[in-house]
């Protein structure tokens, strides 16, 4: 436990100056672009949840969801940027269920797309691996045919590369 605490402390410390500067700049930007930030905060909620619950090694799934989620938010974000009153435009968008459905639907499409493509790629990769296995076996057989069983390297060989016959076993 003590070690873990020490490690955590180290992580905090490792953010460094650039990290703190980035966080600070982000906060400033969020305050400056309050309307966009709030829209994205609400619209990108599925992505935020996905980022929290999906394991680190499957982060590319979050990227897929996030990319499509952002694509769903982008028309409304553009609308806010083009409006005179950005806050009211933001509130209109958030209060409109269609907007929410579009934004969250896009995230859903991202999820489905990720699932479908991942499965398709898995099947393709499994087929490819099987073919590779067959090719390896064929290649091994060719090597054995050409160089003999001893090419497997599981027999003790003499300096000329021939199996050492144990005469004590087969006198």
């Amino acid at each position, binding site marked *: 436990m003590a070690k873990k605490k020490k490690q955590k402390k180290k992580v905090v410390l490792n953010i460094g100056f650039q990290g703190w500067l980035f966080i600070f700049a982000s906060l400033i930007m969020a305050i400056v672009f309050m309307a966009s930030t709030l829209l994205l905060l609400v619209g990108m909620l599925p992505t935020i949840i996905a980022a929290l619950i999906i394991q680190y*090694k*499957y982060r*590319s*799934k979050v*990227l*897929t*969801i*996030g*990319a*499509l989620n*952002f*694509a*769903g938010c*982008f*028309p409304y974000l*553009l*609308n806010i940027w*083009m409006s005179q009153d950005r806050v009211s435009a933001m509130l209109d968008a958030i209060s409109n269920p269609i907007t929410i459905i579009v934004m969250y639907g*896009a995230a859903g499409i*991202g999820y489905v*797309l*990720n*699932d*479908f*493509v*991942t*499965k*398709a*790629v*898995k*099947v*393709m*990769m*499994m087929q490819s*691996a*099987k073919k*590779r*296995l067959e090719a*390896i*076996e064929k*290649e*091994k057989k060719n*090597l*054995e*045919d*050409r*160089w*003999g069983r*001893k*090419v*497997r*390297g599981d027999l003790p060989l003499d300096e*000329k*590369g*021939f199996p050492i016959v144990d005469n004590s076993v087969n006198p």
Partner: protein
Amino acid sequence: MAEQTTKEIQTEEDNEVENNQPQQSASHDKQIPSEIRFNKNIKIYPYQRLSYLDKGPVKAYSAEGLNRTNNNLFALVCDRRLTPRRIASQKYANMRNLSLVKLVTSGKILWPDPAEEKYCFIYELTISKPLIEPTNKYPAMGRKPEDIIDSVVNPMIDLLTDMANKDLVHGEIWPGNIFYGGGGVGDKVTLGECLCLPASSNLPPLYEPVERALAAPEGKGGGSLSDDIYSFGVTLAVIMRSNTPEKGMTAEEIIQSKIEKGSYTTLLKDDRFSGAILELLRGLLYDDPNQRWTLEDIQAWQDGRRLSPKQSSPRIKAGRPILMEKKKYTRPELLSIDFVNYPVEAAKIIENDDLAQWIDRAIEDKTLKTKLEGVLKEINNLDQGTDFNHRLCVAVGSVLFPEMPVLYKSLRFNPRGFGKYMTYKYLDNGSIQEFTEVLRNYFPSFVIRSQKMHDSSALNSKFDAGRNFIKQTKMNMGLERCLYYFNPECQCLSPIVEKYYPITPEDLVEALEGVCASRLPKDIFDRHIVSFLSSKSKNNIDPYMADITASEPHRNYLGRLRVLATLQRRSRMKPFPSIAKWFLKNIDPLLDRFHDDKKKKLVKKEVERLVYKGDLAKIAELFDSKSIFEEDLGGFYLSMRQYKKLDEEKEKLLQKMEDARTFGRESGAQVASLFGLGIAAIVIVISAYVNFLKDGL
């Protein structure tokens, strides 16, 4: 004439090349042809036997020379068991004496019955019947000395002189091998040949000094001029005597009589000679080789100088006999000869000191006693093991009768005749266990030392080397090596080339080609072939001996190939497609040394291509380059690494595929995010465009 003979001898190879397919011929034609070509110029007629010229198992046939001054020839076809005197034939061919049957040529011939190669000597047929029938055991011709001086004595003395000048020992001077007629003028006789059998093997014991007569016919060894002079003396005695005092005696009894009474008395006790011829006979028939007349003495006699016959010093006779197996002996020579028949009793009288006391008290020869003690001390220091009695008998016998041959169990040989004797026994009944015993033990050295031969150290070294060979089990050692080491004139006795008569490494390769042409043998080398090549062509085979004798089949194969290829290249021999075919058939162990199957196929294809050319050297060259194997090994290790990588990749893939739920999920999500980003970008651009259009910008 002699030059012509030499040329004809040099044509042996042509003849051999023509006749190197005995097995094939045997299968094609079972009938004996009416004539056989020896080479282009000589025909032999197998149906026209000349039995009066036969030499025991060596048969004589009528032959005809084409394009020759004298086309009347005869052929002596040798017995494979009895090694002919090929080395002596070179000296014989250079003889220019009309009193000796003229050698025309010699070499191998394909004999039809049974179909196999044999060695053959061709001579001019200028002779008629021999002086006596060879079967006549107790001959006496009763010719007057004055009748034979010009027809026999003088021509024979000239001939002996010529042979001595050429360093040729004839070894078969006896009336059964002296013929009426011949190249001489008038009634001069002609001496028959002496090459087709081991020296003196066809000479009856009557005509030999005791020490040679005791040896088996095949184990007498080369002999000396002194032995020829003795045989000449007995021949003269037989021609001139009218009585046969030895009639009814066995060979052993004749030997015993020669020891007890001397050769002159044994042969001529019932005949009276006087004057010059008596001097000659006494001089020639001395039993002691040191007292026997030399060629100079004979020539002096021939020139008319009369030499007072030396009194022959009698052999030692004991004052009282010694008993062995209830038999009394007063002569140490006869006692030692009988040792071989009663080894147990002999060992008894040696070990219980009876013999030493007999020598001391009955013979009274201190030197002999000292020698006996020395030999006993020496032999008792050696390994006594089994058959010690037999070895003891040989060692002690060499003291009592120094000139005696080695009499061991059933063997009777002079150390110089060991090789041909062993060859004969090996081919005759295959049992040469006793020869192994002779080689393993040191007792021939006692005989060699006691005989004080001029080449005794060389002979001792030879037996030492033989002992060394017999102890080793390598492929080029053992008894087979001894056969070729002790008998350098021996043909290769390998069962693989049993129908052939290979006398040189080149002959052997040609014989192997013939064998492979008719039927591919299981192996192309055996202990005989390796030993034969090792003896005859040390430089060609010894560098590859480690490979030939290795336990790995591929090294055996390469060793065989390299030896034959070296012989083919160095001797510039003809192509050997059949041998190459054998190598192709048996190439698998060598191909197995390549890791790369593709390489194996390529190499085999290349060998197949070279087989038809019969170029063994080219085939061997394929495997001489180290890089060919190194490249292969490099490729193998590379492939091994590749195999390992594939294994690892497969393992990883399988591991990933094991969890089907997670497999590809990450990649899929990444692809999906790309899709999502793309779609989002499109939506953003379109909505911005629509908004700008609506606001009229």
